[in-house]
């Protein structure tokens, strides 16, 4: 009697235990590792965090605020004023108007004329709705473009 009761209990709980382990192996290991393998082969740049190079050295990610503080660069919003910080704390973008408001400072510090900087900012505009919405710029992208366009103003950076 005792063994048959034990046997029927095992019959009831075996699917529960076996299926929970099996579902963990499939959903928790096989699936993410499959996605990792395919992504590393097909989209290595994105899969590894969209790393950005400068002068052959990895300096950060396109999607993470690079923490610019020197007056010769445009600054992200997380450095300028903690009270207006983003939700993530690493927002890589600033609004177009914020970027334009920083142009006089960058111009002062580097000697690059204001109209040239305005044009550079406008050339790197993105929108929250593809071709519409609110305009913004990626700070790291903008500063790297600045270094590339005016290498003599940024000695030691390229």
């Amino acid at each position, binding site marked *: 009697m005792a063994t048959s009761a034990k046997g029927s209990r095992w*019959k009831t709980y075996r*699917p*529960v*235990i*076996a*299926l*929970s*382990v*099996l*579902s*963990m192996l*499939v*959903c*928790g290991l096989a*699936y*993410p*590792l*499959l*996605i*990792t393998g395919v*992504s*590393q082969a*097909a*989209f290595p740049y*994105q*899969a*590894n*965090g*969209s*790393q950005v190079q400068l002068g052959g050295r*990895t*300096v*950060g*990610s*396109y*999607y*993470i605020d*690079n*923490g*610019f503080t020197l007056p010769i*660069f445009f600054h992200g919003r997380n450095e300028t004023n903690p009270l207006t910080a*983003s*939700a*993530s*704390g*690493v*927002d*890589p*973008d600033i*609004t177009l108007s914020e970027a334009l408001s920083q142009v006089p400072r960058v111009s002062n510090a580097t000697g690059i004329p204001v109209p040239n900087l305005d044009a550079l900012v406008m050339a790197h505009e*993105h929108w*929250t*709705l*593809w071709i519409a*919405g*609110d305009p*913004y710029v990626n700070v790291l992208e903008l*500063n*790297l473009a600045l*270094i590339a366009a005016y290498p003599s103003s940024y000695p030691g950076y390229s």
Partner: protein
Amino acid sequence: MIDAIQALTVIGILAAALISGSLLAPYVVRVLTGAPTRLDRLMDPVEKRVYRLIGADPSMAMGWRQYFFAALCLNLAQMAIAFAILVGQGILPLNPQRFPGVSWDLALNTVISFATNTNLQHYAGEVTLSYFSQMTAIQFLQFTSAATGVCVMAAMVRGFKPGSAHMGNFYVDFVRVLTRILLPLCILAALVLVALGVPQTIGGYVTVRTVEGATQTLFVGPVASLVAIMQIGTNGGGYFGANSAYPFQNPNPATDVLQIYLMLLIPTTLIFVFGELIGKKKETRPILIASYGLLAIDLVIAFLGSIPVVGPGIETRFGGFFSTFWTVITTAVTTGSVNASLSGINPLGIMSAFMGMLIQATPGGKGVGVMYMIMYIVITVFVVGLMTGRTPEYLGAKINARDVKLVMAAFLVHPISVLLPTIAAYATKAVYAIPGFSSLPTSVGFTQVLYEFASSAANNGSDFFGAAANTQFFNLSTAAVMFVGRYVPIAILLALAGSMIGRKRVAEQSLRTDGAAFSFVLVGSILLLVVLTFLPFLILGPLLTYFQGMVNFFG
């Protein structure tokens, strides 16, 4: 207010979800009924082997008790596995950052949170969990909780279907939903997300020297595979503490739109599945009109207020419009992911988020949204029957006194599990243990506490506190609320559906439930029920904040 392009964007995304939902529904029905599909040649032998391996008889028909206990036991066993992994992650592989094991109360909260499809997170993943934990505890439970939701809904519908003799077999439903719906959709979505910029690696965090020479750590990991299931499964728990506000989880407007769409996809599909599975396609109509009608009302409330400009709590790449839109959708489908800090959303947006979490069926979470809608329909049929003096009937079955008691019990679980803990949190002064929580009674503080429990009970998971609520009181109280908020209504509604089996059905109902008139009555009765239940608390919270803002505005 929003402009024309933004309004068109809202309509476009909702229309896309509705169209793809109606197209996907017939396939989901074939999966749930075992009808032939193209995947059969590939999947049938695999499934047969799985059933043999786990020792389950796929031909065994289950009653509601067997079905529910199979689901509950499987979920409990899965929680136990995930709990062991979280607590023991310090000695487990794939932990390049060498994170120590998670504390027992946080681990308990986390596994209940993910197994109940809530995904409330009292931790920041990027500084707490190893790759192994993110994959084998978090992503694992995100799949299984989503699959469980679809299964119990299918069982409930089978009970209501005229002429059906049983509720199906849980193990068969679970395996088929996982392998034929969730995994294929997630593989596709995850790869698209990677292509759009979401990382997917197990190579360890990357330390770099920034342009100016400072040291910076890039929190890369198996992110895309998690984001796919967190949105498709209406889970909402993110890889990062900042959830989909963190750029690696949601790098640009394209991924933002894709994630909003993915959240809506399955809940919308299941509305169409209901009619097809029940055998009366027209019965989808009241559920569709009520859920999307209420969602439209939520959106109007949220967009009536001023749309926040880029400022505290709002990410530049999304702006105020996408942040508000996301907040409404994520609560409407009880996903709970966020792409902004909730403190950056205006009080009317928060009010609208509450509506989503309190109604739980606009269109609601995976599977359970439809279940709650059936609950509201039964209540409405009963009330209308009383008013018109006709016999209340739904799908040809007479609604009796026991049915009404059951649906009222299911309905009352929600207010009880939201309101009592909110009061307890204040009465025991546990709220003041949260770092930064104002010691003065403020409407903003009250909103945050009410939101915490509404989000837990609705199995939503978005919150104001995040890792700040990692206190023993909040870990244990929200764990209990999430558990009750998930399994008690499911048990009651399955019991209701089980009692429908074998009940006599009339061919012609005295009150039709598939027309526009009934749909409007349904919307009205849902609003009446929910608003009357929660209004005093909403007045103390977001509405007070809103009117205080108006007073301050007028000087």
